[in-house]
């Protein structure tokens, strides 16, 4: 969709958005709707960033980065009018099933109550209350995600009111609940889950959600925060939020781009920005790889913080303290992606066909996840990795030739740069992951006709994310909310006037949520107002 809705370019642009990832497109739409002239510049040949659908073997297509949609708030999608842009679902309310070799698959959540009752009556009694409590906390925390983080020590009333509102919201939970929230929010997921539940597979499934896309094992304090962040976003995405867009995540990005264009923005793909132009300490536009220079009053970068400040802007425009902070931003990804072309549907013993269209987790216990993480601390790939598996072709046969299937799995933990080096490690490790799959779905290996394994380093190359990190930077207390990505840039504004961030390295992080993009648009508009 090159040059869609080409602009007349007679007047100077108000805004340039660097990067047509989902946050960039959301941001562009809101700015265009507010009457700004907006140009989105995407380096790749298609929009979407890490939310794309592409061919990985002849005839087989896959969501190459994120492979499920579960964090984008329903209200945001409605506001953007995605349904009117041709966006449809191949599957909604998808189930999650914990699978463990040698044990019957365990459906997680409400549909799994009966199965859980058979495994542990205690957990069957405790789980609904536990899960409802977490959900209450998540709902209370959601406004935190959907707003610009306040600045501390600021005299501005917007900041003070934001802080007061946050305090008030937590208070309205009631005294008992508030106490519990203040206790658990700094905890590690391992202890919280083990205090409440006893079934290892259920514990593992919850622990997995707490650490997906992070650089921590479930024993690390702060992993309850990441779990609550995920649940908070999910709470706004619906009561059973796991969904699969028809045509893969790329179709969502296409719809977001159409919404942007419909709002009046221009989207140029295949257009790589070489650098951000600065004049008198102010961002005034960009220079493209081609040498073309485009001026704009405001430049908004959907790239991660490190790429934005170090590659596109250049440290000479920043003070050393700020540069040091950006340099310290931890953004080494630990999640890899495996894509398999299969000549038939795999079979997981005991798993009903209906569950194959959902999310399958191999994270059979909290200790399993923790051990998987331990390897990565020393630059090793997990010998027994955790896997989030989807078979997108079950719900959407158009992604593969008739009768054939695609398996897409997030593999954790895989270091950015293993000590042994990827040249030596790639084939060996792909084999480890396949063996893990085979152990859970006997016979699967013999049905594989093509394999693609994307390491964090590959993800960095393909999607331009520093360190190949899904969230453009670890989600942890010290990189969260008012200090995300770094103090001094946590309100989407940067130290360079006219330059903003709108990507996942900003609050509230990545995962195809779109809130960073919308908050950034608010920040740009607030400044201008």
């Amino acid at each position: 969709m090159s040059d869609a809705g080409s602009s007349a370019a007679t007047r100077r642009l108000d805004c340039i958005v660097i990067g047509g990832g989902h946050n960039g497109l959301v941001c562009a739409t809101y700015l265009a709707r507010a009457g700004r002239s907006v140009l989105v510049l995407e380096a790749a040949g298609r929009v979407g960033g890490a939310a794309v659908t592409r061919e990985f073997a002849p005839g087989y297509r896959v969501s190459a980065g994120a492979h499920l949609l579960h964090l984008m708030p329903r209200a945001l999608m409605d506001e953007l009018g995605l349904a009117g842009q041709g966006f449809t679902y191949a599957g909604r309310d998808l189930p999650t099933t914990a699978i463990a070799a040698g044990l019957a698959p365990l459906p997680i959540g409400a549909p799994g109550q009966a199965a859980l009752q058979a495994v542990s009556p205690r957990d069957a009694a405790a789980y609904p209350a536990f899960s409802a409590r977490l959900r209450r906390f998540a709902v209370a925390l959601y406004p935190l995600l959907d707003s610009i983080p306040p600045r501390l020590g600021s005299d501005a009333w917007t900041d003070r009111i934001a802080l007061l509102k946050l305090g008030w919201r937590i208070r309205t939970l009631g005294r008992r609940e508030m106490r519990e929230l203040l206790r658990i929010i700094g905890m590690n997921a391992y202890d919280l889950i083990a205090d409440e539940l006893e079934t290892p597979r259920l514990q593992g499934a919850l622990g997995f959600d707490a650490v997906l896309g992070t650089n921590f094992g479930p024993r690390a304090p702060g992993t309850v925060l990441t779990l609550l962040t995920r649940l908070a976003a999910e709470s706004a995405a619906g009561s059973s939020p796991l969904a699969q867009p028809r045509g893969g995540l790329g179709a969502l990005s296409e719809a977001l781009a159409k919404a942007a264009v419909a709002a009046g923005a221009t989207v140029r793909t295949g257009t790589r920005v070489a650098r951000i132009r600065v004049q008198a300490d102010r961002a005034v536009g960009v220079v493209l790889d081609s040498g073309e220079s485009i001026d704009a009053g405001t430049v908004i970068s959907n790239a991660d913080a490190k790429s934005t400040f170090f590659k596109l802007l250049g440290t000479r425009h920043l003070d050393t303290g700020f540069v040091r902070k950006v340099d310290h931003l931890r953004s080494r990804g630990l999640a890899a992606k495996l894509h398999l072309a299969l000549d038939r549907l795999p079979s997981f013993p005991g798993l009903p066909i209906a569950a194959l269209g959902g999310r399958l987790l191999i994270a059979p216990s909290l200790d399993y996840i923790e051990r998987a993480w331990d390897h990565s601390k020393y630059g090793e790939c997990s010998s027994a990795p955790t896997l989030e598996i989807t078979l997108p072709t079950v719900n959407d046969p158009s992604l593969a030739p008739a009768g054939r299937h695609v398996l897409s799995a997030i593999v954790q933990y895989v270091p950015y740069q293993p000590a042994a080096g990827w040249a030596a490690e790639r084939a060996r490790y792909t084999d480890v992951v396949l063996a893990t799959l085979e152990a859970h779905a006997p016979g699967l290996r013999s049905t594989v006709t093509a394999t693609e394994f994307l390491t964090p380093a590959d993800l960095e190359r393909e999607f331009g994310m520093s360190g190949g990190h899904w969230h453009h930077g670890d989600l942890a207390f010290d990189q969260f909310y008012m200090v995300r990505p770094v103090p001094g840039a946590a309100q989407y504004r940067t130290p360079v006037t006219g330059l903003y961030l709108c990507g996942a390295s900003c609050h509230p992080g990545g995962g195809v949520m779109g809130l960073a993009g919308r908050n950034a648009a608010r920040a740009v508009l607030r400044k201008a107002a």
Partner: protein
Amino acid sequence: MAAVRSPRGRRHDVIVIGAGHNGLVAACYLSRAGLDVLVLERNEYIGGAAVSRRLYGDFTYSNCSYVCSLLRPEIMRGLELPRHGLQIIPYEGGCTLMRDGGHLALYDNHDALRREICRHSKRDAEAYERFSTDVIRQCKFIKPLLMREPPDPTSFRPRDLMELLYLGQRLNATGEDRMYDTLRFWTMSAADFLDEYFESEIVKAHFAGSSIIGTALGPRSPGTAYVLLHHYMGDIDDTVGAWGFARGGMGAVTQALSASLQASGGCIRAAAPVERILVKHGRARGVALASGEEITASTVVSNMDVKRTFLDTVEPEHLPAEFLTAVRRFKIRGSSGKLNIALDGLPRFPAIPEGAPCIRGDLHLTDTVEMMERAYDDWKQGRWSAAPYVDMLIPSQIDPTMAPEGEHYMSVFVQYCPYALADGPWTEAKRTAFGATVIDAIARQSPDFKSLILHAEIRTPWDIENEVGLTEGNIFQGELTMDQLLFNRPVPGYAQYSTPLAGLYLSGSTTHPGGGVMGAPGANAARRILRDLGRAA
């Protein structure tokens, strides 16, 4: 270690259960306020985990806690501890011995310290200036909070609101950038924090050590940067970061407290194990001893940790179910062991240059953060660290009272050692094997070490629990994690030294601000009690 016996059957104003340092500090303050105080100690000797013990010949072992730095100066002064015999001897520094034969010594002397770091990395010597400024700033911010009651953020009582306001204002006064620094510092991992300053592995490893002492966390666990500070807050002669020995061993601290208590009229009974706290109509009325004797008092102060107090000593029917659940969930994890070794001479450490004063300080064998993290991995798997982190000192070099002339006492603190082993309960053979692991690790840096050993006391978390009474042998009476600090310590809603039972209070390091031989929980508890009794502190 004679304890003064109080006349039996007398009614007291206050009973303190446990003659550990915090219990004694609380008792001293209460006694000085004019209350009739009786301290009951389970063991034959007083001191809890701050003791000097003669277990072999004329050697004195500080067989639990072993150095002094956190003891609050206001307590030292207020209770006149130096007058009652406490003398702290500062030592000059410490050293990490490297596996390749090198070493990094750190001294209080700034120039010497810079020279040392420079040997390993010039850049790190520069970074150290930034590092120490930042850490000392955090120390100074936190220090005044140690001697205050944490406010209950869910309460609308004026006292809590005022305290919250005080905290907010203090934080606010540091300025915007500093507030973010503080926010990050409290939540980061020690490894990440140190990575922001240093490049040299040995420098990082040396500093990271203090972040893991006593905790069931590794240097890469978020929240450990704060624990680093906890050990950085030494306060001898108001020099931030200084450490010292108590002359005569750590028992000198509790002996001085005991003398101070007796001077103001308080009593201590040793060998008087409390079996039960007596409760009537939701009020603590006194205690029943294991002997069957009952002693009544209108106020009972438990210096035991929160689990031991409420799960073992109070009958559950007196407590709300929700409170009991919270107590059960409180994390008190055994993660440390201890060796006390009598040596027939000073061991040689070839890595330390002849005559370097760092041998009189704390010595370490862990030269990378990764080695430390791997030691933690062992603990997670339910086994003691194959290559443990040790914090060893030979105080007899400075304090001649600790060992006969020409012989030496060595205190070896070991991290990590689990309370519960994956392969079943602790046995004599396993304890010996644990000790051998530690001794072998030291012997790799000291060829004559093994031949000098006259006696070694090996203490696992299980031993510490059984002798000292600390649940799981946790030296802090509870993990120092975000969910167990400030208003969450030990139980949300009961973080101000009071309990669900009127007249029953907690004074141990299970309460704010936690462990280390600091005395702050005891002093804070006393202040709270006096306020409740309508007496000015």
